[in-house]
């Protein structure tokens, strides 16, 4: 049974050229195997949500795509090029605060362009445009500690997206926010993404978030030796409103189906503690 399940190949919606390919990847730390034989393809412009119980090695998959960790086996490629070192053509939205505390909102958003050698004036125009886009006009001179949690997330979004990355990786990006701020930020994210669809891989343990945002939801098994066990297409219309979509009957059916698959894994992960 488990061998058959390990062979599940999660493919994107038809018609989308592949952007991220995860090919038979195993991530291990010494003798501890976090994820094993994972095959995943993310189409260009596709929003992929990965759900799984806590501690199933979800984040290691993202870090493999980002090039922060090397797979023990298999390979990852972005737009046909194999990932060998830290990638600069991606945007990564971390769960924790990843802003430089000694730089203002403006300077933080500016970083990616500065490292790429973009001229000062062009940088200024773009940064101001992005800060306005994420609703932080007038906050450019604030330091991270002078911003609220939601505002810091906005700065992080602008920082990650200003370089126009091919892939956007998100590691439980909104889990530290309160529920209202979270819904607000999720809608905001969808609005930004809708403008300019890119491949997104989002990791979350919140199934509602996974369905409300994603085009496809992939379920990972309980760790260690976690793997993809099922993949569900989400055929909900866009643009979506995160706080209202939960009342859609299609949403509820999907939720029930995916939860049926996820539930067993969550129980397993608690039983093994």
């Amino acid at each position: 049974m488990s061998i058959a399940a390990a062979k599940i190949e999660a493919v994107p919606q038809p018609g989308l050229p592949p952007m991220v390919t995860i090919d038979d990847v195993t991530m291990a730390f010494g003798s501890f195997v976090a994820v094993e034989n994972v095959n995943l393809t993310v189409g260009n412009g596709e929003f992929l949500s990965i759900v799984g119980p806590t501690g199933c090695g979800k984040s290691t998959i993202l870090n493999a795509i980002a090039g922060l960790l090397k797979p023990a086996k298999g390979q990852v490629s972005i737009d046909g090029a194999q990932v060998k070192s830290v990638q600069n053509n991606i945007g990564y939205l971390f769960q924790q605060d990843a802003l430089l505390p000694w730089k203002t909102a403006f300077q933080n958003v500016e970083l990616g362009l500065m490292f790429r050698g973009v001229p000062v004036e062009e940088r200024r125009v773009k940064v101001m445009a992005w800060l306005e886009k994420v609703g932080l006009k007038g906050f450019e001179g604030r330091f991270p500690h002078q911003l609220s949690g939601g505002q810091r997330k906005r700065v992080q979004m602008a920082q990650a997206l200003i370089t126009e990355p091919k892939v956007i990786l998100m590691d439980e990006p909104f889990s530290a926010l309160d529920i209202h701020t979270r819904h607000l930020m999720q809608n905001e994210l969808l609005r930004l993404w809708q403008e300019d669809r890119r491949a997104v891989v989002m990791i979350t343990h919140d199934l509602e978030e996974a369905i409300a945002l994603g085009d496809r939801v992939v379920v990972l098994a309980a760790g260690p030796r976690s793997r993809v066990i099922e993949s569900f297409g989400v055929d909900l219309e866009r643009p979506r409103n995160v706080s209202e979509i939960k009342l859609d009957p299609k949403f509820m059916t999907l939720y029930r189906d995916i939860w049926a698959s996820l539930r067993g894994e969550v129980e397993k992960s608690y039983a093994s503690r």
Partner: protein
Amino acid sequence: MQAVNVRLIQITLLAVILGGWQLGVTTGVIDRFFFPAPLDIVQQVVTWVIDPGFYKHVGITLSETVLGYLIGTGLGVAAGVWLGLSPFTARILDPFIKAINAIPRVVLAPIFVLWLGLGLWSKVALAVTLVFFVTFFNAMQGVREVNPVVLSNTRILGARRSDLLRHVYFPAAASWILSSLRTSVGFAVVGAIIGEYLGASAGLGYLIARAEGNFDAVGVFAGIIILAVFVLIIDLLLDVAEKRLITWRPKAGEERPA
């Protein structure tokens, strides 16, 4: 009201101590040779302060302090960031650093006088050895405690090694160094004064040493008071500098919740 009361009590206390002291000296209860009268000390301080030649001494002690602080901090930051980034070298050098840090710095003064003469630089060297280790340990700690998530994020945004040094490691170290600013400047002053005290031809430490050599207790006490004021003024300047330099850090109670 409370604040006014506190001030009032403080002033009364000071008046009682100084008045009692002065009274004791004039009535002969306290030996003038060991504890000169406060009025005499004040007179000596005033004589020095209105004498233009006195400021040469202040200037020399100040330049020794500043040079010692700047050189010591520069070397400390460079070494701290370097060893913070290469744990292997840090492990190799660890016992040597500990051994050198264990030497009481005062005993080095004669060697510095031997090497660098009685002038300014032997005092600067002594101040440097004191300041270096404070900044060194703080800079190393600062580099080691850089948040790994912040580091990953900056690398993904395209930072090269030199960018990381400039935008992540040095600022991280700098915040630790600024927090040790007071201590290290204090050490620089101590280094300069001790150096002068042990052998010099000018400076505040020299003034005290000379007075002591003449059994001039008034001069010694006056020197001590001037030194105290000297350090207080530096402290005030640092207060201003600190506020200017760390604008990015939250003041107590200013941190915003999520």
